[in-house]
């Protein structure tokens, strides 16, 4: 059997809606350079193995990222067996290189476990890791089990690694951002079975596509700009060409953008939606596309903005709404207000453009009154759920503050971390002293009850509450002083206002 140049795998936890893009993106580019590449989506194997009652806890196991969390022995044995299966699959294709895609902090636990298992096995493969979850503060945990790591965009670094140019900038360091996205080979999802994913699109095959990297905004809670300091984008012509080719060769008409935001560059965006709308008119193709989207001020939009967005096939756009409070939005640097959102969603409703809301509860400056404004938003915009314009909302697992987000470095500090097991979650606001983990959890429950009452569908609420329940279990143990981490019960209160 001929050796595979490289095998890439994605690992849990990532939501189960679509296959992870990174392995397919890297495979596509490396194949365009003549390498033989294979990909595995091990994230979805968790869903396949634990579908049913165990899935929520199996997902939480990987997501919690803390070995002290207690889980049933039966579950732990099954997880251990699953990782053995991953190792077998990786080695079965006889790769020269094994690349593990660490999508976020939520994938670190799986990565550590997989690396441990690989270390136990006899093989001569070089192992490397990459992805947004690979950050300096975590690298020491895994450094002795890997040969290389890549921080930032992987295409050119992987290409050079496979060519043996290990001195290339970005191998064992941070890569320079790729400026010309159009020069990269197209993604290849050929190794994936698309059926197990929890897609919104019933019985339809969805292909992912990348139009841009980075973001035009610099929200305080988001670390995108630390990974992609510049906002780069592909030309609308190359995007339309990729969509047209996929449609004509595979008959696939549903696309999902992996971008942090689709409408970041208005000029390119308008050119793209106009081109896709024309393609739909001329070919009756019914192309649809979705992905993350930002609310924009109406005054900045052309008169055709909404009609072309509709006619190009926009579907279930994920709007980063975050909060119903203008003061919270301002501190977040969202660049829009509640009134802008009102106008934007009204236009969506008028033009039959569907969407969902991404909400972030428990931001450090969120007072009780601010929180109530978010609840008011659910009441006020319920009519758009009733009209079918809003498909639902993700309420998430409340505000976590990771080291890489701008908020972590803003002075004066608006939060202090406590000494519970995971201080990304365990922190108290210095602006709203009552806003600690338990208060955020309480607000998450209240928001859920309001959404349930108003029939707002809440996406992933089952898994989110499974994870929250586990976190709360750990937090309560710490608070009671049972665990050894109980050095200080409360944060340093001297900074609280």
């Amino acid at each position, binding site marked *: 059997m001929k050796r595979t140049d490289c095998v890439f795998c994605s690992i849990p936890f990532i939501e189960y809606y679509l296959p992870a893009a990174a392995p397919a993106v890297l495979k596509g580019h490396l194949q365009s350079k003549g390498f033989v590449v294979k990909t595995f989506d091990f994230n979805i194997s968790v869903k396949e193995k634990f579908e049913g*009652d165990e899935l*929520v806890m199996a997902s939480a196991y990987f997501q919690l990222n803390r070995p002290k969390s207690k889980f049933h022995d039966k579950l732990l044995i099954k997880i251990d067996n699953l990782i053995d299966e991953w190792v077998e699959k990786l080695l079965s294709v006889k790769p020269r290189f094994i690349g593990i895609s660490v999508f976020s902090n939520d994938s670190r636990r799986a990565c550590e476990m997989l690396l441990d298992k690989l270390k136990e096995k006899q093989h001569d493969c070089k192992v490397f890791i990459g992805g947004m979850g690979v950050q300096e503060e975590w690298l020491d945990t895994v450094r002795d089990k890997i040969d290389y790591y890549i921080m930032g965009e992987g295409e050119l670094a992987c290409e050079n690694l496979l060519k043996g140019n290990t001195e290339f900038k970005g191998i064992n360091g941070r890569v320079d951002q790729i400026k010309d996205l159009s020069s990269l080979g197209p993604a290849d999802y050929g190794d994936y079975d698309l059926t197990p994913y*929890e897609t*919104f699109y*019933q019985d339809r095959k969805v292909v992912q596509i990348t139009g841009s990297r980075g973001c035009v905004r610099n929200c305080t809670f988001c670390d995108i700009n630390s990974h992609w300091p510049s906002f780069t984008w592909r030309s609308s012509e190359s995007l339309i060409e990729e969509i047209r080719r996929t449609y004509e060769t595979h008959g696939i008409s549903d696309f999902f953008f992996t971008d942090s935001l689709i409408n970041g560059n208005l000029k390119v965006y308008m050119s793209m939606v106009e081109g896709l709308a024309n393609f739909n008119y001329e070919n009756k193709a019914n192309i649809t596309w979705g992905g993350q989207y930002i609310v924009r001020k109406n005054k900045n939009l052309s008169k055709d903005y909404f009609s072309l967005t509709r006619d190009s096939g926009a579907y279930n756009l994920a709007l980063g709404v975050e909060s119903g409070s203008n003061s919270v939005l301002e501190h977040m640097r969202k660049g829009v207000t509640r009134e802008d959102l009102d106008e934007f969603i009204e236009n969506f*409703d008028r033009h*039959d453009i569907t969407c969902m809301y991404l909400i972030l509860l428990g931001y450090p400056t969120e007072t009780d009154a601010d929180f109530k404004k978010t609840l008011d938003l659910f009441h006020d915009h*319920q*009519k758009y*759920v*009733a*009209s*079918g314009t809003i*498909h*639902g909302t993700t309420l998430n697992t409340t505000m976590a503050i990771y080291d890489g987000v701008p908020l972590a470095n803003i002075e004066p500090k608006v939060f202090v971390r406590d000494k519970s097991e995971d201080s990304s979650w365990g922190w108290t606001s210095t602006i709203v002293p009552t806003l600690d983990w*338990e208060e955020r*959890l*309480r607000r998450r*429950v209240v928001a*859920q009850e309001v959404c349930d009452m*108003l*029939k*707002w*569908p*809440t*996406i*992933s*609420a*089952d898994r989110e*509450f*499974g994870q*929250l*329940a586990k976190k*709360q*279990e750990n937090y*309560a143990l710490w*608070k*009671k002083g049972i665990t050894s981490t109980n050095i200080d019960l409360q944060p340093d209160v001297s900074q609280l206002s």
Partner: protein
Amino acid sequence: MREQQSIRFTVDHLSTRNILSIEMTDKSSKDTVLDDGKIVKDKKLKIVKLLLDDVDIKNYIYQGRQKPIYHHKNQGPKTTISDQLFFNGRWKLYYENPARLFLAKYHGRGQKINLPEKQDTKNRYVKQVIASINLHNDKQYR
């Protein structure tokens, strides 16, 4: 009714199950003028926009049904689904009060995220979280 008109009305009787009816009356075969087999003039009623409790029911509208009273036997299907009435007869649309909640439920019914087993799982963990908050706090959640 002539040309485009807006009608706004309030229903005082707030029973749960309701039928909204729109009826076409007084159309005769003389209202349809043919020229060489093609309709050159006709009378029809088109529902341009329908709002229930201020909600534009542009998608739900196609749940409405009409049993047209045709001019001739076997002129068309027994029941039609359309936002246009070309023949006499009542177009009926079922809805429940409160309308907004009913419509939201209608739109969410096909989503995988709303499957009963997912709801059950979520509710089980919500209860667990509330119990834990209450156990470890003086201030009770409820």
